[in-house]
């Protein structure tokens, strides 16, 4: 197993507030890692740092791409995404007014080319490319049981399906690492169980590394092979689910000190 993403001494200050301080972490090939912590611990900030939405104050993030190790600090979000980092959002960010199919096609933008003249004057080549990527998108949607919703607008889907579509959309980017930000938020136990199966299936069939933020401990303990615990912006603990469950510092952070 080799390290895919490596984070060293990562710091992010917002004015006087240190949202993330001195975080070291790493993600290996093909593993499922969870990031947990109380509200306001800086989990989403850390996600945004890793995916390039915000720029770190100091520290380094490196990614092992196809041609060597690449530093990601200060790189543009879309470039980081195209290196192979897909993500979902805590508050769903689908393209609401567009169809399910378009949502997936948009995520595939970097994976095919269309010449302006050819697409504007509808050359046969254009139709061939379109047919090809549409087929790919629909196949992907089929895997996740969304084939009947292809022409529906994303905003008209039920909440649980929107969450699922967001995962499918990020998979369409053919990512090496998938970042899931609270995928089970607002779901009932049944939907959470579905989601757990879905994430396991994704990780198994697509051979990708998954980093997930989650408050639902049943999901985390079921899925994760390693867990990072974040509190007040710094790493509190790292280990397997059993280790974390027995860690005193973690219990203290979640439940408070024993009287």
């Amino acid at each position: 197993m080799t390290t895919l993403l490596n984070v060293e001494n990562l710091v992010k200050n917002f004015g006087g507030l240190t949202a993330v301080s001195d975080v070291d972490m790493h993600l290996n090939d093909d593993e499922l890692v969870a990031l947990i912590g109380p509200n306001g611990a800086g989990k989403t900030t850390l996600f945004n740092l890793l995916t390039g939405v915000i720029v770190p104050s100091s520290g380094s993030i490196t990614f092992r791409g196809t041609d060597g190790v690449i530093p990601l600090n200060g790189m543009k979000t879309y470039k980081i995404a195209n290196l192979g980092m897909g993500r979902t959002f805590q508050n769903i960010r689908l393209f609401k007014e567009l169809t399910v199919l378009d949502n997936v096609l948009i995520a595939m933008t970097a994976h095919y080319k269309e010449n302006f003249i050819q697409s504007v004057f509808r050359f046969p080549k254009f139709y061939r490319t379109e047919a090809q990527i549409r087929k790919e998108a629909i196949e992907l949607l089929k895997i996740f049981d969304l084939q009947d919703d292809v022409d529906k607008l994303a905003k008209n889907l039920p909440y649980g399906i929107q969450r699922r579509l967001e995962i499918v959309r990020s998979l369409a980017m053919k990512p090496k690492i998938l970042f899931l930000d609270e995928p089970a938020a607002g779901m009932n136990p049944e939907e959470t169980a579905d989601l757990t199966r879905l994430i396991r299936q994704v990780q198994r069939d697509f051979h990708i590394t998954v980093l997930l933020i989650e408050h639902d401990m049943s999901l985390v303990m079921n899925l994760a092979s390693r867990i990072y615990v974040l509190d007040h912006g710094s790493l509190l603990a790292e280990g397997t689910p059993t280790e974390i469950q027995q860690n005193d510092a973690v219990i203290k952070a979640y439940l408070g000190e024993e009287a």
Partner: protein
Amino acid sequence: MKANLKYNICWLILMVAGFYLMNALILVGVIDSFLENMVVTIGINIILAVGLNLVIGFAGQFSLGHAGFMAVGAYATAIIISKTPTAGAFYASIIVGVVVAIIAALIVGIPTLRLRGDYLAIATMGAAEIIRIIINNLKITNGPSGMFNIPQFATWPVVYTMVCITTIIIVNFIHSRGGRAALAVREDEIAAESMGINIFKWKLAAFVLGAATAAVAGSMQASYLQTIAPNNFNIMESIAILIIVVLGGVGSITGSFVAATILGVVDAALQSFGALRMVIYALVLILIMIFKPSGIMGSRELSFKRLFSRKNKKVGAKS
């Protein structure tokens, strides 16, 4: 592929039929020179509104500088065909106008498209004013008094063809990789970026394409009306185009066609009312905005594909 061919042939038939209908009406004498003028004005407004709709409705960038790019095309054509009044020079001048407008749009767009919403609107408005003031102060453009006796090459068939070509280009762009990327930018910039889309590039692409079609409209106007002045391209012109887009429906190309036609007809019908005309015009706008705030068409489009599939569904339900 076969299905696509079917829809494309439908559109082609519609375009050719429109042409011959117009031709027949002129031959019969139903359309006199006054009405022909109205139709051409409507055509030019369609080109402008469709281009602006791409920028505002599809890429989600609020631009108020459309008239500036129109001025670039108009003056390119006016200057070139005043010197060499041949049909070849006229078509070459359209291309020159488009190229200059593209360069201008890049210069304007690269710094301003980083802004959002109202800031972008003000910046593009300022850019259009700069273009107008430059034209106002150049010798080659004959300054504020404008240019007269420009040879007329842009007859109604030419304008009609240009409406078809620019609309085809824009609609086809929207339904391609680039158009989808622009739609993603409109829907959610952060999500689009996280999906690997270079949002700045696609904003700029839509803006530049919009500007290029505006230049074509400018060329048509200069050569059809045969006289232009810098004041034809002030902020009021940009707003007039914006009104068409909003009235027809932001994000509906069909809507831009409908709104440009309705406003053109209303405008011509009220010609004899003098000053009262603007009052009635404003009243019509207010009423539509009250009863249909999303515009006449909302974001719906005329689509042969949907027409056919609806028909098939009905047949399927019966059998």
